[in-house]
């Protein structure tokens, strides 16, 4: 037994402590990303990881921060393995930190095995194309920007907009129709405030969703390293549940802006050359490594669908974070401040939103036969309504034609009846499409040029009673 050495080595020559980094001298054999234990003179133990290794020098990043650590009397123990977290289905219904420690005053999990949280990229040859519809219960998403199983669809929010509430509502309501019992949500809360953490916990408990949600959380006042580990641990759990337990997993990561800010902080402390906006030059690759841990695999029943949520600083969509995210993900759901100011929840701007894969997962046999055409018509009509509003602002509403006035009415009805819904309102796709027809019925039938006559006769409210 003693021969199978764990290769645990302990050093005490700390030459420098800078921010979250500890520089250890005399280390010849540390491995990059090797897990480290820091034991302070008072017996307190913290964990860290090797972030830089050279002959004779090793730089360790301490997860819990370096406050109170002194160069004398502190021992650094190299554990001979990477950062591994014990993962199992026992994590559903529980709250953990990124290192796998329970945060809900409960006991540690028993079942499961330790896994490297960096994961393995999915072999591109075994990736399966997303085609199954996920019903989020939110009309603006299900109707016009449908989410499919295995897709990555981020939500671009702004400061003060209700992205948290929307994320919690989606986590509670999302389901794959016909496979409700096999659906799980992994919620990665990155650098959230304490009141936000409390909100998520309370929301899931009170709505009964807690049973199917595994929450991995790091708070805003925790060291940046913990924030960067949060999505990795969350996605490791998602991968286990999806590809080994055959579950359909929705991974919601909130807020990726906090993740990128933590990355910037760590990069600055390592004195790396900054890229655009002061963010590290490798941020694109780093984000891609996170976002690409989603999809369907040939031969596996389960899947991971990702909904990362980010806050655009200053509502600027050209900011590096949303900009780079947009390159990697398959569309976006954009929240709009003007809609929010009008009291509309969720304030989803459907004209700025897009799901690139939606067309492959909707229609006959998947949602309803009229879904595609209603979706196209609603989008086109709303775009015209917004243009008409601009026109009305210039020439006055009285100068508009009757049809244009109808478009104005449609625009209001679309926002207040179709897009707007309650926090606890879970609409199935049929209800969403029926509401779509209801608002489209404001327009003259001749304006519904994107919809086949057969569908108009089948679903239009004017004809429904006559069937």
């Amino acid at each position, binding site marked *: *037994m003693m*021969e199978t050495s764990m290769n645990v080595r302990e*050093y005490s020559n700390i030459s420098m402590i800078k921010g979250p980094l500890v520089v250890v001298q*005399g280390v010849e054999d540390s491995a990059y990303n090797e897990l480290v234990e820091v034991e302070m003179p008072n017996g307190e133990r913290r964990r860290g990881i090797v972030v830089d290794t050279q002959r004779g020098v090793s730089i360790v990043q301490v997860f819990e921060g370096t406050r109170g650590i002194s160069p004398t009397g502190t021992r650094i123990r190299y554990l001979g393995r990477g950062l591994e977290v014990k993962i199992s289905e026992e994590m559903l219904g529980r709250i953990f930190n990124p290192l796998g420690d329970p945060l*809900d005053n409960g006991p540690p999990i028993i079942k499961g095995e*330790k896994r490297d949280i960096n994961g393995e990229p999915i072999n591109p040859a075994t990736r399966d194309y997303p085609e199954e519809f996920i019903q989020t219960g939110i009309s603006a998403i299900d109707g016009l920007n449908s989410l499919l199983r295995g897709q990555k669809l981020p939500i671009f929010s702004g400061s003060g907009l209700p992205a948290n509430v929307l994320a919690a509502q989606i986590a509670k309501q999302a389901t794959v129709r016909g496979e409700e019992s096999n659906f799980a949500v992994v919620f990665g809360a990155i650098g959230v405030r304490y009141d936000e953490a409390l909100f998520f916990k309370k929301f899931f408990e009170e709505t009964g969703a807690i049973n199917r949600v595994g929450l991995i959380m790091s708070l805003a006042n925790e060291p940046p390293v913990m924030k960067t580990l949060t999505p990795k641990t969350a996605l490791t759990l998602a991968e286990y549940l999806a590809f080994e337990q055959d579950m359909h997993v929705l991974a919601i990561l909130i807020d990726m802006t906090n993740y990128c800010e933590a990355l910037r902080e760590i990069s600055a402390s390592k004195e790396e050359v900054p890229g655009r906006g002061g963010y590290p030059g490798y941020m694109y690759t780093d984000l891609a490594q996170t976002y690409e841990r989603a999809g369907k695999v040939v031969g596996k029943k389960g899947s991971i669908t990702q909904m990362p949520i980010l806050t655009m600083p200053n509502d600027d969509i050209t900011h590096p974070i949303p900009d780079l995210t947009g390159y990697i993900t398959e569309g976006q759901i954009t929240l709009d401040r003007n809609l929010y100011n009008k009291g509309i929840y969720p304030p989803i701007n459907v004209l700025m939103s897009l799901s690139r894969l939606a067309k492959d997962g909707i229609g006959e046999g998947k949602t309803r036969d009229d879904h595609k055409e209603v979706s196209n018509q609603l989008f086109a009509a709303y775009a015209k309504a917004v243009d008409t509003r601009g026109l009305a602002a210039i020439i006055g509403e009285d100068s508009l034609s009757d049809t244009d006035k109808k478009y104005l009415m449609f625009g209001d009805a679309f926002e207040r009846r179709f897009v707007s819904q309650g926090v606890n309102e879970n609409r199935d796709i049929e209800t969403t499409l029926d509401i779509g027809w209801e608002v489209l019925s404001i327009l003259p039938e001749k304006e519904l040029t994107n919809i086949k006559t057969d569908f108009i006769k089948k679903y239009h409210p004017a004809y429904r009673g006559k069937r």
Partner: protein
Amino acid sequence: MVSMDELLGQVLDREFNYIREEMSKALEESLRLIEQRYDEVLRTYSSKIQDLVTKAKEEVEGEKAKLDIENKRAVLGEKNYWISKVYDQVLRQISKVKESASYQQGIAAVLKREVKEGAIVYCAPDEADKISKILRGLKVKAEIREDQRMIGGVRIEYKDVGLVRDYSLDLVLGQVFESLKPKIAEILFGEI
């Protein structure tokens, strides 16, 4: 020629029909308004009742889920308690492991491979003599220090480079036990 009576009768009939028509329209209109109002009230209150039912259902589901999770946590806590009892029992029986030939050979192999002149070897108090004997056999001058916290194995400190290599039984036991926890739980509690 029409008499006055007949004329009066005709006028009265006409007026009567007119009033009856108007009354009928008014009745129809009233009934329509009543039905409209009824539908409106029915819709509003049905929706309110539906909301209340949904809310109540959600509250029940919420309580059910919370209790379910509490239950799972309590069961897991209990399981962890009994597993830690197993660990305590293992520690009590550790002397049997330390007496085994493979353990002795393991210690000897580690010391042969790792110990150098001037190193400090930390060990459990009850093993100091054994370690000393092994070091004498290897003809290596190393200091032996007893560590009360150790249950077995050795830790070797190289003062010149500030390095300590940990081959303690505490470390090995901790890591092995952690990885065997699911199996122990299966034996104690059946399929989990």
